[in-house]
């Protein structure tokens, strides 16, 4: 299945569209022209600014389409690749998801960056919910689904960043 993700960079008032074409034949490949899609300038978007004294772990990703260009998908030996999705809002701040795949199989899902603005309740969320969401992502791939619907703002944000990272790898 060939995927030609066309990433629309930039956001206006926090919305961004990512388009993935799923066509029937042709081998799996990363897009050659991902960077050629019009990047609509400003990176103003879903990433909230970090609160004072907020915990910030790892490198944060800009909330623009450039984070999904092929150059961000680290090429390793033996077909194992990683990508980081865009920063998205969740209940306590901003996070981005990192996914590692081998071929079409998800090996690992984790948090690439998380900024909770120093909210004291968020530490519980970070320590409990995030690992659970990571597990869920790996589990979901065994059910052959095309999307997840949930009321959780955290899981929605997490799922969105993960989906975008997977798109950049053409590995979903």
């Amino acid at each position: 299945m060939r995927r030609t993700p066309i990433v629309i960079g930039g956001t206006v008032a926090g919305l961004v569209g990512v388009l993935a074409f799923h066509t029937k034949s042709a081998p799996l490949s990363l897009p050659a022209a991902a960077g050629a899609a019009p990047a609509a300038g400003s990176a103003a978007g879903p990433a909230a600014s970090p609160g004072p004294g907020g915990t910030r772990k790892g490198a944060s990703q800009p909330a623009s389409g450039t984070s999904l260009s092929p150059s961000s998908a680290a090429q390793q030996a033996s077909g194992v690749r990683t990508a980081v999705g865009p920063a998205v809002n969740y209940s306590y701040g901003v996070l981005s998801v990192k996914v590692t795949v081998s071929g079409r199989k998800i090996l690992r899902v984790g948090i690439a960056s998380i900024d909770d603005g120093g909210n004291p309740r968020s530490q519980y969320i970070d320590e409990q919910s995030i690992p659970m969401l990571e597990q869920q992502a790996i589990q979901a791939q065994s059910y052959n689904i095309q999307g997840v619907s949930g009321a959780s703002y955290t899981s929605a944000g997490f799922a969105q960043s993960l989906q975008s990272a997977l798109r950049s790898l053409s590995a979903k």
Partner: protein
Amino acid sequence: MGTIVTIDVYTAAGVTDAEVAELCEQLDRARSVLHHADEVFSTWQPHSPISRLRSAEITRAQAPAEVAEVLERCATARDLSGGWFDPWAMPGGIDPTGYVKGWAAQNALAAFSAEYIVGAIVNAAGDIASLGSLRNGEPFRIGIVDPLAPRQLAEIVDLTGAIATSGSYERGNHLIDPHLGCPCARAASASVTGPDLGLADALATGLAVAGTPGLAFIEPLDKYEALIIGFDGSRRCTEGFPLAPHQGTLPH
């Protein structure tokens, strides 16, 4: 507040460059729809028409036409939900957010139209509008997050059209009971499927507040089905709710 919207388009084999160009144009149109909806309806922007309406800076007649359309549809949704979805009963003034996200995503989906498009999904942070199906004719499969165990899926749905899920199990998701005027939810999560995501969104919001008795306002609606997950993990759904057969059991 930012919402990532992802769009997947499934095409027949051998899509040409011209067709890809056409799809890019349709994507641009879908993006415009989403951006425009945010500009008009974002309650986070103090100068958006909806904010100015809420603060009585402008009247309904002075607001853009889309506002009137959305408010009209919210009134219909309020009636259909027996008053459990009521954007007029929100603190701070009229707040159609529970309808607008789905409405905008459904309109964005409408930008995609071509013979070589087999299916398409617009996913607005878990509120999903779809048309068509997978290439092999099988329906799209959508997982519903288990509100009591967010690492897991509670159910899988065979999706035709749209699905929206509303719930109360996380901070920041204050579901206001329009009858009481304060936050009160009687279900961990409520999912509604049906042809229109805007209405599904509103109905799911009302249903999460109403709880299991609210299934009574979904049952008579042609083509709309619902699933409620209680705080005790129990599931109740309308008769035609499109649960997908799946191998093995989903861990609970």
